[in-house]
């Protein structure tokens, strides 16, 4: 074994570490490699393709009027009714155990002992989840538009692009939320379970109870904010209506675009900050 050259030792000490932004990029890159090599990406891809395939087959075979009445109705029924489900699945698949897995599977021990801020790890993993989920949404929108072109030609309504923008905003909020729960728990199954329950049943149930019984606008529920994804595909855009069926007062709430954007952004900011704080403070015991 050769003796060390003093200048080599000195140069090691003087090596400049990459910026935190650059380290975020590194984490994102390798997280994506990990995603694309793992089964979960293909499972989610297959689920997305099955949903698209089912819709393609059913609409092609039954030709339902609700779908084929107008271009906007087609996109409302096809895209509007299924994209939130695809987004929630993406959030669960990519965000559910993203942070908790670092503790439970002990992969965090490989990363955290290095000269990198935990915030860089958190943001890098979040960006990777966003990119992977956006790819899923991209595949889904491409299949949707493909079918739309088949039935209605190249006349893609501008409302679909608005809806796509809101869907991506919802994706951002959902991932903020799933990362928060992932930071809250050390068990991957617990964080995934809570996310699944909340997004598939919990929020919808809360929204229905609050609007049905308390007659309060559920502005604090994320799924209510996500209503802009479908509302924008309706012509005219729905408005909150006070009804009096059978003499009993009832209000049907419709989230406006500014309200929806504010709710989704609010959820993202609050949960992202809380999730980051939790991850910064959580100990690898």
């Amino acid at each position, binding site marked *: 074994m050769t003796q060390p050259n003093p200048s080599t030792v000195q140069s090691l000490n003087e090596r400049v*570490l990459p910026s935190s932004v650059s380290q975020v990029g590194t984490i994102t890159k390798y997280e994506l*490699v*990990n995603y694309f090599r793992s089964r979960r990406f293909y499972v989610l891809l297959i689920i997305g393709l099955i949903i698209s395939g089912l819709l393609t087959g059913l609409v092609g075979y039954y030709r339902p009027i609700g779908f084929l009445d107008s271009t906007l109705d087609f996109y409302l029924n096809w895209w509007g009714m299924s994209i939130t489900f695809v987004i929630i699945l993406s959030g669960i698949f990519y965000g559910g155990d993203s942070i908790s897995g670092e503790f439970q599977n002990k992969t965090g021990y490989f990363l955290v*002992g290095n000269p990198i801020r935990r915030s860089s790890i958190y943001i890098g993993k979040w960006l990777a989840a966003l990119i992977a989920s956006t790819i899923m949404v991209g595949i889904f929108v491409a299949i949707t538009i493909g079918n739309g072109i088949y039935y209605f030609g190249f006349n893609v309504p501008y409302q679909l692009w608005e809806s796509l923008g809101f869907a991506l905003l919802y994706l951002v909020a959902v991932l903020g939320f799933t990362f928060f729960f992932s930071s809250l728990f050390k068990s991957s199954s617990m964080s995934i379970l809570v996310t699944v329950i909340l997004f598939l049943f919990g929020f919808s149930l809360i929204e229905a109870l609050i609007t049905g019984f308390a007659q309060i606008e559920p502005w604090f529920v994320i799924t209510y904010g996500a209503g802009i994804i479908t509302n924008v595909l309706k012509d005219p855009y729905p408005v909150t209506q006070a009804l009096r069926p059978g003499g009993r007062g009832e209000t049907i709430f419709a989230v406006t675009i500014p309200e929806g954007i504010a709710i989704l952004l609010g959820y993202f900011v609050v949960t992202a900050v809380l999730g980051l704080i939790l991850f910064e403070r959580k100990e*690898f*015991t």
Partner: protein
Amino acid sequence: MSGPSIEAVNLSKRYGSFTALSNLSLKIEGSKCVGFLGPNGAGKTTTLKIFTDMIRASEGKALINGVDVHLNKKQALGSVGALIESPEIYPALTPREALSMIAEIRGLPRAEARKKIEEIVTEVKMNEWLDKKVGKFSKGMKQRINIAAALLSDPEVIMLDEPTTGLDPRGQSEVRDIVKDLKKKNRLVFMSSHLLNEVQEICDEVAMIDHGKLLVYDKLSNVTSRFSGDGSNVVEIELSREIDDQSINKNIASLGGVSSVEKVDSRKIRIHFTGGMQNQESLLQELATMKIGMISFRPTASALEDTYLSLIKDTL
């Protein structure tokens, strides 16, 4: 002093009413290997985790090269390679990718990283597995990659938490050789271990901890001479031919510093002596001149084991 250093300043860690670490103050400077010993739950891993910011100290500071790990993690750990417990690597990645990720985080230029990864993976004997997915690896193979990751950027401070865990005997021996080489490269190695033989073989100094409190930190020879039973060191001599009792009693027992001689079998004797390394050197010289067929002269772990047993009474 300009060499690498790590320093615990009144370091404490409490989990509710349980104290894992109590006012640990320890300063290690220079290029050397320091063994960190203690029973299960003594606070060894807790200390190493605080030094790598995996957990926060309840009180006190952990400094690496004078930089507070908690306040400035990036700068403090820039010169540190650490292997804490047995990390898992993302199973879908190959060692090349996992190590490339660490290289990028640590700012190794791409060409240098590529070369360094090949070198370090060869050193840990994993070069044939460089492009296979980690998910299929055994525990020992993963541990080799973890060791490679800790050494990848040629850090001047290396913290190893029971690095030979999960390795077969050959792997353990290879890791010991790697650590010995690190000492020659002017690195500071701080290594926890349960294996006293391992520490005795490769470490220059030893720190013992129990119930979260530092019991002793000194040179290995000083610690063993201060605390082991009669204060003696022990060497085991193997011979190519049989030795009789008369030769043992007349010639060997009368050598300077020798307190007793024990005949293990007809070709192996154990010599207890005092006076540390100086006497050990002269003992070796004199035994060699006796022409008794000595084919090996090996300090045994018993002195360190005696020290350990005399200082640490409980196993938990």
